[in-house]
């Protein structure tokens, strides 16, 4: 999404919503799990696409972040009664089980496919269109680039890895709670991109590094990684200006 000049700070919604919906459906049946997961994918794509159409660069950051916080705060309200038991709420829902070895192979395959897809799109005509929109939306429209189509594709490309990651996360832990929408998860892609110097491949490695660092630091003192995340965010304007797309300057009108 950065390519079309938008930074999303609410990726936890894309990451978490389809699996959360799917897990809610799994309470009733495996079919409903698949149906609600797919419906969650479509809905989350439509919402983010709508946001990218309705807002400018600066407002998009705010809207996605505020929206993800809203979902985080509101999701524990979802409670069902099944066979006389209450399920959902703060605890969340259970998720289908899958063997660990199969899961890891699937994860690596998805990663490779996404990486190849990204490289292909980046070098294609549509990739250049995305770059052009990121540089200047008005001029891109003037030279005949189909803004809607390009934006939609860019949002979709951003959604696919988030949905896949959410699914893998669900299978890994066998359980989905409202914490999947937490701020830490929302800002994780931004932090990984920052640590990965804005390079997509490096960002993948930095994601792994951050996850392992998180395990180490949190075992030293629970919550320590949260402090590291917050410090990275505080220092982000200084250490990683490349991640920020052109937005309104402080004090700029409007």
């Amino acid at each position: 999404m950065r390519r079309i000049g938008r930074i999303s700070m609410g990726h936890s919604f894309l990451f978490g919503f389809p699996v959360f919906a799917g897990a809610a459906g799994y309470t009733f049946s495996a079919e409903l799990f698949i149906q609600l997961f797919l419906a969650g994918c479509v809905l989350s794509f439509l919402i983010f696409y709508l946001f990218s159409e309705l807002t400018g660069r600066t407002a998009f950051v705010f809207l996605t972040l505020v929206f993800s916080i809203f979902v985080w705060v509101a999701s524990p309200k979802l409670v069902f009664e099944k066979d006389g038991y209450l399920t959902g709420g703060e605890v969340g829902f259970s998720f289908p089980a899958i063997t660990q070895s199969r899961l890891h192979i699937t994860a690596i395959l998805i990663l490779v496919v996404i990486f190849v897809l990204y490289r292909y799109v980046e070098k294609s005509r549509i990739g250049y269109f995305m770059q052009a929109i990121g540089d200047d939306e008005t001029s891109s429209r003037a030279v005949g680039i189909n803004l809607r189509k390009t934006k939609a594709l860019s949002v979709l490309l951003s959604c696919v890895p988030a949905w896949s990651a959410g699914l893998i996360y669900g299978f890994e832990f066998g359980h989905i709670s409202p914490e999947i929408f937490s701020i830490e998860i929302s800002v994780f892609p931004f932090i990984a991109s920052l640590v990965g110097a804005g390079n997509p491949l490096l960002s993948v490695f930095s994601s792994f590094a951050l996850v392992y660092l998180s395990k180490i630091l949190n075992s030293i003192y629970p919550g320590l990684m949260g402090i590291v995340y917050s410090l990275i965010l505080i220092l982000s304007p200084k250490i990683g200006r490349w991640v920020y797309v052109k937005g309104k300057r402080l004090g700029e009108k409007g």
Partner: protein
Amino acid sequence: MALLVSLNFRIGRFLNLSLGGLFAAGGYIAYFTPSPFVALIAGLIFGFLMALTISRICRSITEATILSLGAGILIERFLEMIHRSSYYYFVSFDYSPYLVVLGILAYLIIFAVYTSPYGLKMKFVESDHELAELYGVNTKRVFTVTTSLTSACAVLAGFFSSGLLAISPTTGFGYLLSGIMVSALTAQFRQIGAVHYLTLLAVSFASVRFLGVLI
């Protein structure tokens, strides 16, 4: 909370996402040191330091907003780390009547500023920050004072609300979210100065009446 979000956004030109964390910090201060002065001083110092950091290293609204988000998470994580024996805290006193006093005081200050000779300058800052600076308004000072005072108010609001709440590090997020929504809704009226803040009050009451605080 809507008033604090609105003041920060209109005068400071950024969405202050640390206000939720500061609100929760107020609750913790009430639990550990039940003194409003500690809350006031802590809020002022935190707000001042954040304003200083934003002035020094941020160039855009987005950067300032993300910095404030980092600051909010830092507070929240810090609160979670300092005392982990139980997740929710409860205090035995109820300072909530002082919340009304704090609100009235905040509005009185706003009206005093906007009806003073400095009011027009503040309106200029709200409408066009850059133009205000070109016409002699020290926008950096206005930004620092606003951020410090709103941070202090957020901590005090958390402090005075503590008797009504199950205190946890994420206590403030619901309030922050409601504040952002009410603030965004009121901004649609395109008013400026004291009139805007009066409308904000009306919209806040209406939203609490019809929707309740999202928490």
